[in-house]
Structures are given as C-alpha cells and as structure tokens.
C-alpha cells in the first residue's frame, strides 16, 4: 500500500462501539471454535448419563462375552457378546470385499487414470457416498436379498453376506478418497527413480508407491472400518437381525447399532433395557473413537515426516 491517505477520525463514541462489537464477535467465534469439543464431550456425557444407573448391576463379563440377548424375558438377559460378534464379523467381511476394491480403485484413480476420466470417476464416487443408508438398506432387502437367495441357494437373502456387501459399497468411497490423497502425497521423484531403474508400472506401484504410502492407506482402511462399525439403517434392514453367533456368512446376524435402533422405541425411559441400550451406545462411541483417533494419528504421522 503506497497510498497513505490518513484515515478520517471517528467520533470517540462510535470507536468504542466498534471496539465492543469486535470483542463480542471475537467471543462468539471462540465459542463456536470450541463447540466441537463441547459436543464430543457432551455426546459422551449424555449417553453415559442415561446408561450409568445400570452400571452397578452390570456384569461386565456377561455384557461383553455373554451370548444371551433376551431383553424382554424374565429375568432379562443382556449378553451383548453376540451383538459384538455380529458387528465385528459383518465389518470384517465387508473389509475383505472393500479393501482390495477400494485401495485398487485408489491406485487406479491416482496412478493409471487420465485427467478427464479421473474427474468423472471422482464425481461418481462422491455421488455413491451420498446415497443415504436407508436407501442402501432398501436395496439390500429388495434387490440384493432375492439375488443372493437365487445365486447361492440359501433360505434367507437378508444375512451377513448381504449386509457386508452393502457396507463394502458404502465404505469404498472414503477409502478411495483418502487412499488417493495418500498416493498423491508420494513425491514424483520416487516414481521417476523407479522408472529410471527399469521398473514396470506395476512394480513401481507395488514395490515403491504402496510401501511409501502405507500409513495413508492404513488410515483409509481404518476410516472405512469406522464407518462400517457405526452404520445403522443398512445393517438393520439387511442383516436379518437375529442375535446369534453366526456359523456361516449366510447366517443372519444382529449388530450393536441395529439393536439400539430396533429396540429403543419399545424400551421405557429409565428401565433396565433402556439403560443397557445406552451402555451399548457408550461401547460403540468408544470403539469408533479409538478407530478414528488411530486413523487420525496415522495421518498426522505422515504429515510430520
């Protein structure tokens, strides 16, 4: 700024008002800034508060490893082990499908794609990520279910395999976008050095780029896992919803999230069942918190390098 016209002097009263407004707005901004922290703690606090009265009666071993989930029998049994197994098994199966698919797509988009198709592909992935979970559940029940019944000749189309396929499709977009970022972050000199040594494109990808970007790819997988664990409507509709330990991938399962969604409506406020469902919420919150935190630290680790 070379132009130095002096600023006209404001009347003192107006200046004070301006200063006050500035202070006020700054306070507001600071408050909003910490709101995310407040909300995260608030979520934990309120969910924990509703479930806490049951804690003294809780047999932690039965809750975590017991497989009898009979909330409405007398005496009621709250063994969430089968639900935990349901969540973990369906997530694991989803990842078996999604990880090769998602990371493969990330490698393709980042290394083998021209600019134009890449932009199109990214848009498609973004749209795929936008499909609401209840629509996925609907697809699982109405489209995928009958197909699975026909193809694999099993009695029930809504089962662990169905839900895992849906979860895989739902978590692929986040894997692709984070995985692509990770591969993009590998300096071009690595690629050039590999090519100069006579490596083929595939050798470059698997011997150089994937090892170099492994933390980012790991974070991508973890975020996919976090999403799959927390997913509710799709698994409520497509798993078959039955609290047993599954024996094959075509058995129905019941997950932690779906249990809350299905049973909270009928549980009276303050009843034992209600409190146990909130404790399941605490368990879910903790699980996803740990997964997301790990993913975040892995990503931060790369940036520092």
């Amino acid at each position, binding site marked *: *700024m070379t132009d130095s016209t002096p*600023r006209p002097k404001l009347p003192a009263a107006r200046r004070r008002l301006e200063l006050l407004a*500035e202070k006020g707005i*700054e306070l*507001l*901004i*600071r*408050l*909003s*800034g*910490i*709101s*995310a*922290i407040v*909300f*995260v703690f608030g*979520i934990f606090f*309120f*969910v924990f*508060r*509703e479930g806490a009265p049951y804690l003294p009666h809780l047999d932690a071993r039965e809750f975590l490893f017991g497989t009898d989930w009979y909330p409405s029998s007398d005496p009621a049994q709250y063994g969430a082990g089968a639900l935990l197994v349901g969540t973990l098994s369906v997530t694991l199966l989803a990842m078996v499908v999604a990880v090769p698919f998602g990371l493969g797509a990330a490698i393709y988009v980042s290394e083998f794609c021209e600019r134009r198709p890449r932009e199109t*592909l990214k*848009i*498609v*992935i*973004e*749209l*795929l990520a*936008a*499909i*609401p*979970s*209840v*629509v996925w559940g*609907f*697809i699982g*029940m*109405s489209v995928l279910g009958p197909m699975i019944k026909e193809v694999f000749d099993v009695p029930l189309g809504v089962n662990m395999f169905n839900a895992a396929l849906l979860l895989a*499709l739902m978590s692929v977009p986040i894997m*692709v976008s984070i995985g692509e970022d990770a591969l993009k972050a590998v300096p071009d000199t690595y690629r050039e050095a590999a090519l100069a040594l006579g490596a083929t494109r595939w050798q470059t990808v698997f011997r150089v780029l994937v090892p170099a970007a492994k933390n980012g790819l790991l974070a991508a997988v973890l975020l996919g896992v976090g999403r799959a*664990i*927390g*997913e*509710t*409507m799709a698994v409520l*509709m497509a798993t078959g919803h039955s609290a047993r330990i599954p024996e094959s991938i075509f058995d129905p399962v019941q997950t932690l*999230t779906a249990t809350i*969604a299905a049973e*909270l*409506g009928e549980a009276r*406020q303050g009843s034992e069942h209600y409190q146990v469902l*909130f404790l399941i*919420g605490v368990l*879910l*919150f903790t699980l*996803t918190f740990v*997964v*997301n*935190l790990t993913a*975040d630290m892995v990503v931060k680790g790369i940036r520092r390098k």
Partner: protein
Amino acid sequence: MVVPLLFIVVYIVAKGAPALTWEFFTENPRRGGIEGGIWPALVGTVYLILISLCISAPIGVLAAVYIEEYAKENWFTRIVNLAVVNLAGVPSIVHGLFGLGAFVYGMQFGKSILAASLTLAIMTLPVIIASTKEALAAVPRSFREACWNVGATRWQTIWHIVLPNSISGILTGVILQVSRTAGETAPVMLTGVATWAIGGDGLFLYNLREQCMSLSMHLFYIRTQASGAKEELSYAIAATLLGVVLLVNASAIVFRIYLRSRKKW
C-alpha cells in the same frame, strides 16, 4: 464403480416409475401408508433440513473461522481439530442417543421437530466446518495483509474480504449438509420423527414441538413394517429420496466446477 451407481439408480427409478404420479407427491398417505402419497413426509424433511441448517450453518462457519483465522499452532488447536474429526466419526445412532438424552429428556423438548433438528445440526456440523475451512484457506494471505495494512481490524477483514471471497466454497458445504440431512434416519427416529404424523393443513403442517414424518423414515416404515404395501410404492419412495439427495449433490458439484473455472487468483 460407475456400474453399481448406474444400476442402483436406473433399477430403482424403473421399478418405482408406475407409482410416481402427481398425487403421489401431493396427497396424504392413507390406510397406514399403503395407499395415497407422501406429502407430509416431504414437508417434514424440508422442516428438518431448514431448521437444522439455521443452527449448524452459523456455528459451523464461525468455528471454521476460528480454526483458520484465529487459532494459533498449538496443542489446543490440535484438540479442536481432533474433536471435529471425531465428531464426524461418531455413529449416527449414537448421535440419536445423545439427542434423546440431551434434548428430548434433558431439556424436556419431548420427541419433536426441534429435538430432531438440533441432533441433525450437531451431526452435520463437521461437514460445514470442513468445507468452510477449505474455502477460507483458499483465500490468499496477501488479501488479508492488504486489508490489515489499511487499518482494518481482524473481524472487519474477515467480514469484508475473507468471507465474500470464500462464500462459494461455504455454500458448497451447506449444500452437502442439506443432502446429508435429507437422508439421515437413525438419529431422527429416536428424537422426533414418527412413522405416522399427518400434521395440520396447508403448507405449514407442523409446529416445532410436534413430531413429523420424513422421507427416509417413511421408506423404512413402508418397507419393513407396513404390510400390504405395493412393491412399486416403496420403490417410488426410494426413488424420490435418492433423486433428492443425488440432485442436491450434483448441484453442489456443478457449482464447484463452475466456481473453479472462474477463479481469479
């Protein structure tokens, strides 16, 4: 990747097409939802979107302003960022539990549009924060320095220079938040959306303390609980929901591409 998306959209729309009539959109459902239209569900969804937007947009934008413009590089800022990431990772059903504990029972709002909108607002906050942050970071530092040099205060700089230059990026975030809100089911079914709430007459069916219907919940209800509903009815509802969400998202994408093409710096 393109195949499943196309397949899903085409299949659902084709199956639902016979039921997609004008009456389907403008009439109340009858006989437990197996006949008639989805009008209250449409209105309820719009209510939820608008009210949660009014809450989360200002807080989200200001929070992003804090992170980008005010916060220093220290441990506290790291925690703020971490909180945003984790807020985005909390499962939607846990948000629902939180809404139930905090708003429905804690603040005594009862199961209502108000409680559901507040829950949705908190849930979608990270979406707005993330896109606003990106938009603010794209404004060159020289713009701010020029403004400070002529004696503007920090807030004046943000209000007159930074925000106008990043408004388009912020709007994209808002649009994405709308699409997210439209499709969410689990948190609102615990906090204020009922399977059956026709409301009053006219355009403003509900007041804030009432329960409402929503498209997402209606789809869940018709597909899993209403017996005797024709197949094409549930496909038609799914097609409507999918249409709304994909159109909103596509418009955000088009908007973004357009803006990128006319960027001046």
